[in-house]
């Protein structure tokens, strides 16, 4: 039997083209495997082969979602693959969105099996888990070996048309589709077992997790914005020059609160970004590009808003865990309410 033809989708970083300064790299296709494709190709053995790799910069993809998807898709289809692998993206948000978009489009528009991999907290996982199989991976590229070991057999199974088992068996992120199977013990026994464990304080796994609809309904609009006290918050990592609190460039362990009383403009000499997940050149030259203090200060003087809150809050949203982000925002929200702020402008990069 001829080898299964695989096309691999990766970003500019894994293609070793460059980091954030190359994130606007346009789609390109190369024959054979590139970067992590080597490990995939080795794991495929004589069953499958990566015939081509399509590479696209994460920023280019996300900023030009429709065009980029089209370009990438036409490159992929030109190699007539039997299977498409995207990523894995681990906890890289834009890469995850790109992998999810590509894999879902390949499946829906080209009718070709596709699989990707990412960390459960990657926004791409939530966005695409119902559209395409996403193998759960660790949160960094250190988990590449495990990811390959899980994605390869799953992908081959997908191509062969073999029945796909439940998420727990196969290792994909639950997609909301139930798989029927016969349990050895009947329901009443299992329920009692679970109850006994619960009473003893032992860990147990529910068979029917409640859906996690974590949505917050929108708050009432501001009646008169010219009287409102507006606060600025950002996940774009804007900090006073020198980053006095040493907020980490990724996986931030803290947030900063900085006094902007009397400041009318963020300049190259006074502010910069601590964020390591995007090209910092533009924000370092003029941090107003991320945190619009200049405009809001003018609006305050002109009476277009009531006032700009004396402090801005900042952290680095780059591989920062959802739990941490939540905790920061909880603390920030409390302070803002206590300080009589009426509304918040939150900027993200």
């Amino acid at each position, binding site marked *: 039997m001829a080898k299964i033809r695989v096309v691999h989708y990766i970003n500019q970083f894994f293609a070793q083209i460059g980091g954030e300064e190359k994130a606007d790299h346009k789609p390109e296709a190369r024959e054979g495997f590139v970067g992590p494709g080597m490990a995939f190709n080795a794991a495929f053995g004589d069953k499958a082969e990566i015939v081509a790799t399509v590479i696209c910069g994460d*920023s280019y993809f996300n900023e030009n979602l429709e065009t980029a998807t089209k370009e990438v898709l036409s490159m992929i289809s030109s190699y007539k693959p039997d299977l498409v692998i995207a990523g894995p993206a681990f906890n890289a948000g834009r890469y995850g969105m790109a992998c999810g978009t590509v894999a879902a489009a390949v499946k829906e528009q080209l009718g070709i099996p596709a699989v990707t991999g990412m960390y459960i907290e990657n926004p791409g996982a939530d966005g695409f888990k119902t559209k395409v199989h996403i193998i759960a991976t660790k949160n960094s590229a250190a988990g590449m070996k495990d990811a390959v070991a899980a994605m390869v057999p799953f992908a081959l199974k997908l191509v062969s048309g073999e029945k796909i088992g439940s998420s727990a068996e196969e290792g994909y992120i639950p997609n909301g589709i139930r798989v029927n199977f016969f349990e050895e013990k009947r329901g009443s026994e299992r329920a009692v077992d679970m109850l006994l464990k619960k009473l003893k304080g032992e860990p147990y796994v529910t068979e029917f997790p409640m859906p996690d609809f974590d949505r917050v309904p929108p708050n009432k609009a501001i009646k008169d914005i010219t009287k409102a006290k507006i606060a600025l918050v950002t996940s774009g990592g804007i900090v006073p020059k020198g980053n006095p609190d040493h907020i980490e460039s990724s996986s931030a362990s803290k947030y900063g609160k900085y006094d902007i009383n009397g400041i009318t403009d963020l300049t190259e000499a006074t502010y910069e970004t601590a964020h390591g997940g995007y090209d910092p050149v533009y924000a370092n030259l003029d941090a107003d590009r991320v945190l619009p203090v200049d405009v809001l200060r003018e609006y305050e003087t002109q009476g277009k808003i009531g006032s700009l809150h004396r402090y801005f809050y900042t952290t680095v949203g780059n591989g920062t865990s959802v739990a941490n982000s939540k905790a920061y925002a909880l603390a920030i929200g409390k302070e803002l309410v206590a300080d009589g702020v009426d509304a918040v402008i939150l900027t993200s990069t």
Partner: protein
Amino acid sequence: MVKEIERAGLPVVHICTVVPISLTVGANRIVPAVAIPHPLGNPSLTPAEEKEIRSKLVDKALIALSTEVTDQTVFEMS
């Protein structure tokens, strides 16, 4: 973060470039921005033109904060 601050009781407008991420994380008022490394600016323009773009985005954000919404709403730039 948007969600937790909203939960605290304050209306939040999220200015960001990758709108699908904003929708996924549960922002209710969303204003699409210019580009990932410079959401409220554009280094290829003159400083005056750049300021104008920034002002327009902030205007849009203020409109978003002044508009009642019942569900996730994207306030596109006209």
